[in-house]
């Protein structure tokens, strides 16, 4: 058995002795020498986070960072939602005087920017940061200090653009900030600079987390978790991380070129000096379309996890589900030009992108059918998480249908920049991300907090969200077909759009109420929710083998995986690996495909340096809006912080 589960490859070439085999200190306690509560307590001390502010800022526990990430992303979701509510109030009737065009421009820019960059990308990564290490059966994420750094960078970037908005320097050129509108000539002042630097912050953080997740999945899976035993959620965020790695550099480069055009007089997008405005659109959408799937892919992971648990059977079509994820990841890079159908492209190009836009419906369709088959053949238990998934099916498929329509160039040309497009992408984004996400929070809340959320409030939450959403966004299809353009702060009564807009606004308020209920449910359940126990839904994946909430070490002993749903396969006793240190942070590094235990590697201790490095990064980025020299002195400060970060401190972890 142990040959299947562990490699015995030597580290050094034959004939040489590597220090990697230094004999273990006999006084160091190992987890096969003690058991039970004593083992739990000692491991919790080794892997724990020190109390106090310094401890909180130094923590590298993926669960604590993950919790902060999730909370912060939800905070931005609420801010983005509030800006939408204000826009809806303004549009409720013709020639409404609630606000003028300047504030309205800032509001729709902040809404889109927040939802896409501060909520959409981070929320999937946030849940991955918390859940992936638990689901693959390890004790911390790969590169935990980088993880802490990423969180702070994300937080600072988000705060920066919102504080700028509060000071009336809010970005106002739309969430994609097209040139020439966003260029130096048409947008003087600092508004667009804050927008462009916010991109730098969030993409830096998003890229770093993507690398952490890829490495955690490839190298830290529990022994026995071969590729075909990886939970579907983990597959989803793994593929997602690759999409992030290939897509995000494009927008980082685009926004950097934009800010250079604005601040140091480069001419990337200036046609008068050989630049080109469409270059910006190409680079933006080369990121921007995969972005849609970056938002959607983690949600497919939530759906797979919830459907499997509540259908009470293994997922139907595991292989097609995984292949669909990968196919979606690849195809997402072949669609970007369909955002640019009206800019005047060669016909062949338009046809190609129409075909690929329709093609991507196939893997998504396969996934939907696999989930339906799983439910069909299972014994579904309709709790709140599953209810949200059922809502997702309905809304997402409706959004997919209008998507197929928009893939065709003549229709797209007709409804381009109208509310029809607004309706379409809210159906796919809210349907494809927010509904599964709310289901996921109801599903994993007991794991995060140890308590259940209220089912009664949950059902109210779902129905209000479902009704409010459709009431807000369905009429927009029609207002769009009637010709109402996006991004106008008001309209005349003669246009005849008044009633439909009023219905949309009422729907938006109902949707908003459902989120208030959600918030109340979270807050009351935190205090008074029923105690959950480790596995309240009787799920099959490894995170449910840990305590709720999990101890700092996640597992007292690293589980050994024998099945895709390990907890369903091993009901009497879970097989485990022993021999890791109790006194020091050690985890198992395994091989990429077969997940055989390969190394017994140290995991980094808490450190304040990632926080310091993030502060230095923020100073450099924000400073560079005001003087290019900030890149030099700010960069030096970041460099010093990074040296402090990597310099060994004499702890065994750092030394070994």
């Amino acid at each position, binding site marked *: *058995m*142990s040959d299947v589960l*562990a490699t015995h490859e030597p*580290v*050094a070439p034959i004939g*040489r002795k*590597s*220090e*990697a085999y*230094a004999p273990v200190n006999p006084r160091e306690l190992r987890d*096969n020498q003690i058991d039970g509560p004593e083992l739990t307590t000692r491991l919790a001390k080794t892997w724990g986070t020190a109390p106090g502010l310094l401890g909180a800022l130094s923590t590298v526990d993926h669960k604590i960072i993950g919790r902060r990430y999730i909370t912060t992303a939800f905070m931005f979701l609420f801010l983005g939602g509030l800006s939408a509510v204000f826009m809806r109030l303004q549009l409720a009737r013709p020639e409404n005087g609630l606000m003028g065009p300047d504030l309205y421009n800032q509001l729709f820019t902040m809404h889109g920017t927040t939802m896409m960059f501060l909520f959409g990308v981070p929320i999937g990564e946030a849940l991955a940061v918390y859940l992936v290490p638990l689901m693959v059966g390890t004790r911390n994420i*790969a*590169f935990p200090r980088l993880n802490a750094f990423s969180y702070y960078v994300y937080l600072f970037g988000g705060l920066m653009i919102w504080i700028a908005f509060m000071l009336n320097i809010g970005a106002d050129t739309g969430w994609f900030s097209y040139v020439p509108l966003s260029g130096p000539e048409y947008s003087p002042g600092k508004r667009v600079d804050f927008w462009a630097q916010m991109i730098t912050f969030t993409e830096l953080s998003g890229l770093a987390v*993507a690398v*952490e997740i*890829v*490495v955690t999945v*490839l*190298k830290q899976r529990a*022994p026995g978790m071969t590729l075909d035993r990886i939970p579907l959620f983990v597959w989803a965020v793994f593929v997602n991380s690759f999409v992030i*790695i*290939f897509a995000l*550099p494009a927008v*980082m*480069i685009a926004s950097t*070129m934009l800010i*250079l055009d604005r601040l*140091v007089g*480069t*001419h*990337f997008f200036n046609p008068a*000096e*050989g630049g*080109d405005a469409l*270059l910006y659109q*190409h*680079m933006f959408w080369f990121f921007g379309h995969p972005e849609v799937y970056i938002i959607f892919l983690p949600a497919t992971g939530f759906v797979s996890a919830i459907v499997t648990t509540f259908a009470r059977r293994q997922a139907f079509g595991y292989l097609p589900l995984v292949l669909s994820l990968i196919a979606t990841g690849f195809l997402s890079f072949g669609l970007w030009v369909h955002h640019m159908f009206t800019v005047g492209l060669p016909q062949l190009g338009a046809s190609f992108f129409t075909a690929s836009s329709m093609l991507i419906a196939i893997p998504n369709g396969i996934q939907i059918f696999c989930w339906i088959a799983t439910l069909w053949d299972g014994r579904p238990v309709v709790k709140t998480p599953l209810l949200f998934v059922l809502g997702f099916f309905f809304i997402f498929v409706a959004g997919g249908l209008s998507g197929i329509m928009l893939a065709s160039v003549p229709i797209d040309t007709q409804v381009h920049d109208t509310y029809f497009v607004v309706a379409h992408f809210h159906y796919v984004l809210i349907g494809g991300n927010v509904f599964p996400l709310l289901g996921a929070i109801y599903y994993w809340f007991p794991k995060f907090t140890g308590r259940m959320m209220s089912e009664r409030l949950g059902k109210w939450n779902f129905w209000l969200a479902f009704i409010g959403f459709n009431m807000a966004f369905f009429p927009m299809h029609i207002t769009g077909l009637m010709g109402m353009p996006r991004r106008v702060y008001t309209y005349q009564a003669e246009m005849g759009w008044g009633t439909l807009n009023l219905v949309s606004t009422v729907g938006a308020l109902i949707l908003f109420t459902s989120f208030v209920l959600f918030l109340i449910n979270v807050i009351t359940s935190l205090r008074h929710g029923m105690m959950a126990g480790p596995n309240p839904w009787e799920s099959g994946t490894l995170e449910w*083998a840990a305590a709720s909430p999990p101890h700092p070490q996640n597992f007292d*002993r690293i589980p*050994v995986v024998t099945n895709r749903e390990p907890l369903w396969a091993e009901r009497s*006793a*879970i*097989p*485990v*690996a*022993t*021999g*890791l240190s109790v006194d020091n942070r050690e985890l*198992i*590094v395994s091989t990429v495909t077969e997940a055989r*235990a*390969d*190394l*017994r590697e*140290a995991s980094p201790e808490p450190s304040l340096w990632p926080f310091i490095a993030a502060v230095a990064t923020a100073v450099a980025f924000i400073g560079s809006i005001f003087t290019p020299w900030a890149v030099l002195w700010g960069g030096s400060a970041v460099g010093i912080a990074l*040296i402090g970060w990597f310099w*060994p401190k004499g702890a065994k972890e*750092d*030394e*070994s």
Partner: protein
Amino acid sequence: MRQRPVLDVSGLPEYGYGARSPVWWGTVGFCVLEGMGFLIVIGGYLYLAFLNQQWPLSAPPGSLLWSSILTVLAVVSVWPNWLAKQNGEHENLLKVRRDLVVMSLIGLVLIVLRIFELGALHVRWDQNAYGSMVWMLLGLHTAHIVTDVIDTIVLTVLMFTRHGHGKRFSDVSDNAFYWNFVVLSWLPIYVLLYWAPRL
């Protein structure tokens, strides 16, 4: 939940080299995403080159002298870099120290050469879109050289302290791996900026 021990991992090594090490995979990840950044800028350069009637725009391409010396030295540096990696994996401290000192010096010389190279360009970044693209590509690559040289110098100092043993050898190996990326990513940029306009 009850536990059933089936595997003892206490005899496993504490670190490994190359694809066995998570840091190696992390380095590959960053190489891929940074490589993607280079590709996007190169794509933008070509996009503008095809769009404009004349390219380079009203400026001759940069001087071949310094850029070529830099390229030759960068390519040559792959050899001592390979030695550093090999000696790192053999955990030979004395040779690793020697190789890292050599690599640090080469890195510093390359930075000086890059400064000369930038001085020998015939265009400024704010002159036209060609100048912007050239400076963007060179700036991006210079950032990579500077980052890796600082990293190498810190690692060199580290190997002369009491910390220079064990897993640090694995770091030497990963650092050498990243340097190969810095050199490799330069070659297409060199051809694109200095030879393509002269063809």
